[in-house]
């Protein structure tokens, strides 16, 4: 399935049994990169042998994406050297998690888009077709090359993307979270293909945070944390628990296993503050849950299982059809954000750039917007009060740099998220709904956000925390509810969990599989 001459060249090196120190397809040594005052990578070194499948592991914000950008030449490193084997090859070619193909163009056009074959001023359709046929054979994909790409399934599109990458004859194929949009059988198909690719001599760097996949596919792993290489291991010599410890660090692991007293010790007192009975809406059905003041309810589920839709509906951003939602004793007909907010629900969206912030406006303006009514009289903004309020939010949430006039889009992801959180916490919402609040933020910001959630609960606010990060849920939640297929299908409380359960859940990614 791979071009024959590649196979021969690899065979002649005789380095396919994996254990022998074969020739290196990629050598990275001492790479550092800083963005302003933020050090994204410091002294990172890693190697990938010919025919090896190596995992690149790390939490969000560990520096994976910066390293990928340096490897693929999108960003220059400040210092360090990287070299790839082979003369005619084009180094590291990445296949990204967000597909970069044009859905409305045909498969063959997508494959040829970077270098469309031409005859005179016209596209050479014959050449384009024959190239596409070869490329598709390479990935064993049997589709009509003239079909528009959007008619293909996601897994097939992923293969088209890989076919396009392979056309460039890379010495290293970099797969960046390739399974994030695939179901398990599609993922298995992809893995079978990647193994074959490696067996015939292509080096593969597999970026993922799912340890089960990593153990399934890879021989070795490089673990990044806070921009440094924390571990460089053969998977046969280690276990998932040790890998997890490397990825998340002792402090977070500690927090997870022995949460601060505030979490997990919640005593239900009085009436629930949020009561949800058989609530159905766009993307979820029949959700019933009560939340007490001061309680943190974790919500988890796979992508599209309905947990985000439920959270959005609480925030008034998605429609509800039937069922009851009560905040305190008041029924909420929540079909607009304004109504939800008036009822005391603050919704912190998962995409801060799209729905959380006005990126072009200043940090101070963003922090103050939801509270502006409270700092004005008769519709007139009281300037000094507003400024003090903004400064207080910035101080309390340790936003860096602590300058209200700084354009918020120029802040790091973690600090942007602190602003989003800060602006809502300042309104002291009765119920705070957060959708994946620590996605793509560094460890420092993550801990700060966790502290903010605990302090909100400590002040008697109810918190509903949707997260794809199991570690986070285990460390913060008083109980965790699971969503599957658009509805709530179970709840786990902290006292029913032993440490073994926790670690199982950490490494397997879905405690509901027990």
């Amino acid at each position, binding site marked *: 399935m791979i071009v024959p001459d590649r196979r021969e060249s690899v065979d002649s090196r005789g380095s396919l049994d994996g254990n022998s120190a074969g020739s290196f397809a990629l050598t990275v040594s001492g790479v550092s990169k800083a963005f302003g005052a933020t050090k994204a990578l410091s002294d990172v070194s890693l190697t990938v042998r010919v025919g090896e499948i190596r995992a690149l592991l790390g939490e969000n914000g560990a520096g994976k994406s910066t390293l990928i950008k340096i490897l693929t030449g999108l960003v220059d490193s400040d210092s360090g050297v990287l070299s790839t084997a082979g003369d005619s090859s084009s180094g590291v070619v990445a296949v990204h998690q967000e597909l970069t193909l044009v859905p409305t163009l045909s498969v063959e056009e997508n494959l040829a888009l970077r270098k469309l074959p031409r005859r005179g001023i016209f596209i050479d359709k014959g050449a384009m077709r024959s190239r596409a046929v070869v490329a598709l054979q390479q990935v064993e994909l049997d589709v009509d090359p003239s079909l528009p790409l959007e008619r293909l399934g996601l897994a097939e599109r992923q293969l088209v993307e890989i076919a396009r990458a392979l056309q460039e004859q890379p010495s290293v194929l970099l797969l960046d979270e390739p399974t994030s949009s695939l179901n398990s059988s599609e993922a298995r198909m992809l893995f079978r293909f990647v193994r074959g690719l490696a067996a015939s001599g292509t080096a593969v760097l597999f970026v993922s945070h799912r340890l089960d996949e990593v153990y399934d596919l890879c021989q070795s792993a490089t673990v990044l944390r806070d921009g440094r290489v924390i571990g460089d291991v053969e998977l046969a010599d280690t276990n998932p628990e040790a890998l997890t410890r490397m990825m998340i660090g002792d402090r977070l692991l500690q927090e997870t296993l022995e949460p601060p007293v505030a979490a997990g010790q919640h005593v239900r007192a009085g009436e629930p503050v949020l009561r949800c009975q058989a609530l159905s809406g766009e993307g979820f059905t029949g959700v019933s849950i009560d939340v007490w003041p001061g309680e943190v309810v974790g919500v988890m589920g796979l992508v599209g299982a309905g947990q985000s839709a439920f959270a959005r509906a609480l*925030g*008034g*951003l998605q429609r509800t059809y039937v069922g009851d939602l009560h905040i305190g004793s008041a029924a909420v007909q929540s079909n*607009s*954000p*304004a109504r*939800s*907010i*008036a009822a005391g629900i603050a*919704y912190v*969206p998962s995409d801060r750039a*799209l*729905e*959380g*912030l*006005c*990126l*072009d*406006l200043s940090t101070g*303006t963003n922090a103050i*917007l*939801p509270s*502006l*009514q409270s700092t*004005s009289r008769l*519709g*007139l*903004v009281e300037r000094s009060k507003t400024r003090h309020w903004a400064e207080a939010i910035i101080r309390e949430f340790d936003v860096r740099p602590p300058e209200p006039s700084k*354009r918020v889009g*120029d802040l790091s992801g973690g600090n942007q998220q602190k602003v989003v959180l800060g602006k809502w916490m300042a309104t002291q919402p009765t119920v705070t709904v957060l959708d994946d609040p620590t996605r793509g933020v560094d460890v420092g910001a993550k801990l700060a956000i966790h502290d903010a959630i605990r302090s909100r609960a400590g002040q008697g606010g109810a918190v509903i925390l949707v997260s794809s990060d199991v570690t986070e849920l285990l460390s913060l939640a008083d109980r965790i509810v699971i969503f599957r297929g658009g509805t709530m299908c179970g709840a786990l409380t902290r006292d029913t969990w032993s440490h073994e359960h926790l670690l199982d859940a950490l490494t397997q990614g879905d405690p509901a599989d027990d």
Partner: protein
Amino acid sequence: MALLILLVVAALAVDRFATLSNAMAILRAGSFTGIVAVGMTLVIIRGYYADLSVPAVIAVGALTSLAMMPAIGVLPAVAVALLVSTLIGLLNGVIIAVASGNPIIVTLGTQILLSGVIVAITQGAFVYGTSETFADIGSAKVLGVPTPILAFLVVAGIGQAWLSLTTSGRFFIAAGANQRAATAMGLPTRRLGMVAMAVCGLTAGFAGVVLAAFTDQANVAIGSGYEFSAIAAVAVGGTSLFGGAGSIWRTVVGVVFVATIDNVLVLLGLPFEARLLATGIVIIVAVVFDALLRRSTR
């Protein structure tokens, strides 16, 4: 900055430029565009790109006030003209909000439709003034300042105060900067859009009334070209055409800048076509200059 340079250079290089009467001439020439540009600035900051129905609304304001005056008197006629203009703007806003229409296309539609209505009613003929009071106000001076300039400054002052001092003014900017984030925050983004369009209708209608008082006559074409000169003034002033940033003061600077250039070219005795050419070039240069300046400071 660019305005200061322009004023200094013009004062040094052009005879008869640096006089009080010439300054008044510049401001008066810019005042009609300026009144419209205040409403246009709100529309653009809100993220609605532009209101292209301005020429027709100006004509509605001018024709309504002139035509109604004999029957109901000066003030009621002006009030009716302003009300009708505001309602047209509001209608634009409602269509845009309810149908999620593109503001440029929606207002282009209203512009064409209204022109048709006006021609059907007036047959393209001029309507002349009938009230001496009205014409006197239009050509009067207060402390040496012509009334159109005063009207412009008052409108600009109100607009700037609204934008910078009130909560709703800040919400305009937030809604224009990121509509989805503003909606998620519970801000009434659609209503803000309707208000911006209604105010733009109001300012266009008011510009029509002031024009009618000044010239004491009007026809369907009285407002033509003002939509683009207003947009140009907003852009030259440095308000982002993508919304979410800007101020009325910037627009005032833009208005004066464009009016000054035209004034200088007139004083230099250039023919009309050369003035058009030069004004176009200067607008483009000013906007490019501004973009470069902002890129270097970011």
